[in-house]
């Protein structure tokens, strides 16, 4: 039974993308991210209780998560700055195109070959970016 949780993720992430627009009406981006971290922790705390606060000690994985968290916070901060002045639909769609960046990076850095569908997706994404930017 995967459909229900997948649909739940879809709806909840839709709210995740939209709600900051309302929060940014009265708070600056850095304040929104500060309180967002508390909301995040509200959900994580029961998980930590469930885990009895016994976290796996894998230095490499933990380092990757720490680096990822720093970049994620910076990305969300940039997203909030965009959302404060721009239209939700355009910004959410534009930033949701990030898998294209991964595909392009894989092509440049890892020399991975792109199949026809990926090439079409990248071309469509670039066209979308140009249209949304105009």
């Amino acid at each position, binding site marked *: 039974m995967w459909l229900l949780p997948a649909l739940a993720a879809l709806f909840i992430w839709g709210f995740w993308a939209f709600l900051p627009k309302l929060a940014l009406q009265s708070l600056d981006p850095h304040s929104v991210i500060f309180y967002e971290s508390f909301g995040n*922790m509200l959900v994580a705390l029961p*998980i930590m209780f469930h885990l009895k606060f016994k976290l796996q000690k894998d230095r490499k994985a933990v380092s990757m998560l720490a680096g990822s968290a720093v970049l994620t916070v910076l990305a969300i901060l940039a997203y909030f*700055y965009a959302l404060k002045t721009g239209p939700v639909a*355009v910004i959410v769609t534009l930033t949701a195109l990030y898998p294209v960046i991964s595909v392009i990076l894989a092509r440049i850095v890892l020399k991975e070959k792109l199949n026809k569908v990926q090439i079409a997706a990248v071309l469509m994404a670039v066209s979308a970016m140009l249209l949304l930017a105009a």
Partner: protein
Amino acid sequence: MTDNQWFLPAMMALFTWGVTAFLPKLVLRRLKPLQMIAYSSCFFMVTAFVVQLFYLDQGGVQFEPRGVALAMATGCCGAFGQIFYLQALKNGSVAHVSMISSLYPLIATLLAFIFLHEPMTIRQGVGVLLGLSSIILLVVANDSKK
């Protein structure tokens, strides 16, 4: 691009997320999903606190009850979304689950239309449709690789 002050930060978010997108996949090879969520939330909070140091000259963290509640709800949604996504992955294929969950801009667009009555030009509408089609194609491309 006269009034597009939002474009540069949006592109910065796009590129940064693009760079970090593959990291959780690597981490999930070494940590269990709930462990990853616990660690991520801790690091997220620490980083969000450190960010505030750079805004001390602007008065630090602001407080306004409605904004605080909405920001905290955003954090809850982010974490719950991740939990449901991982739950869906337990029984469903990555391709199908990603396909459905990656369409979240549609929900955000709908919410913006309902609650903010956001106007959209035809050009932007076409751009949003092209962007969503591109996301679907990427998921399909990923599926056809397996």
